[in-house]
């Protein structure tokens, strides 16, 4: 599972002027974060399809199955509208890493961005990690996805000690 990729391939011109201010943010609007329910599945599939361009119903359906140390959260606005979701999991000793809370996905309805929903979801995951005695949170982001990179930077994440390496192999 990967953190949502929304901005791949976009390489803005370097001498561009900074972007104008975003639409009126909804800071302060009530956001409720709760555990996922089966009834959320259609909204999750639809949001992911809108953001990634690929529908993955089986993938998300399988993701609803309860798993130890895994947290699948949903955010709702004050009127109980679905606003986004996040998935995190405590993993230990893979790649030699001691126990850490991994953020696998955060997706927010594009019409509701700049309103603190992503932050509420991230905070929700961190609270659950902390409750399990975890003191380190990690994620992995495509380095071309500046939007999601900026989001995690704004939460306080910095580069960790690991580098992802890969290589194409012919099947």
């Amino acid at each position, binding site marked *: 599972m990967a953190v949502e990729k929304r901005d791949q391939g976009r390489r803005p011109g370097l*001498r561009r002027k*900074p972007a104008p*201010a975003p639409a009126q943010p909804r800071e302060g609007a009530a956001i409720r974060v709760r555990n996922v329910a089966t009834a959320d599945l259609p909204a999750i599939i639809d949001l992911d399809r809108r953001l990634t361009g690929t529908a993955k119903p089986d993938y998300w359906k399988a993701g609803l199955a309860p798993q130890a140390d895994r947290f699948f959260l949903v955010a709702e606005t004050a009127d109980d509208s679905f606003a986004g979701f996040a998935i995190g999991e405590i993993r230990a000793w893979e790649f030699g890493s001691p126990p850490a809370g991994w953020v696998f996905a955060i997706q927010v309805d594009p019409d509701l961005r700049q309103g603190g929903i992503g932050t509420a979801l991230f905070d929700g995951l961190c609270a659950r990690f902390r409750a399990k005695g975890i003191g380190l949170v990690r994620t992995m982001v495509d*380095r071309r996805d*500046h939007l999601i*990179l900026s989001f995690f930077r*704004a939460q306080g994440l910095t580069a960790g000690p690991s580098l992802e390496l890969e290589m194409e192999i012919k099947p």
Partner: protein
Amino acid sequence: MKLQMATRLGLYAALELARDPGRQLSATDLSERFAVSTNHLAKVLRELGRAGLVEAERGAGGGYRFTGNPRRTTLMDIVALFEEKPGDRASEPGDGTDIGRALGRVLSEVDEIAEATLRSVTLETLLKHARR
């Protein structure tokens, strides 16, 4: 990573002004704060002005104020005003050889990571963590 002096001054000035967009500071105020040449800083401020990030107010009590969006302006937006784009290197002897090409791929990887880092940190994010 080594930044040119103009780039560092651009970052200092933009960040200091973005701390409080309603506040005006003169080139002298800023140069004293960072112990640098006022003339050099004035040139840097003009470049920031051309990019739409600061505006100069003339007259008594005048100075520069930040006019960009700190939540949207990244460190890369400032760096790009004064530095070559990462990876924009002039052709050098040996580039066309197999070793030169392989070395170029490694250096491009370094450039991409540097650019991603600078592009992911907004002025607001940096200021938030500077206050901690």
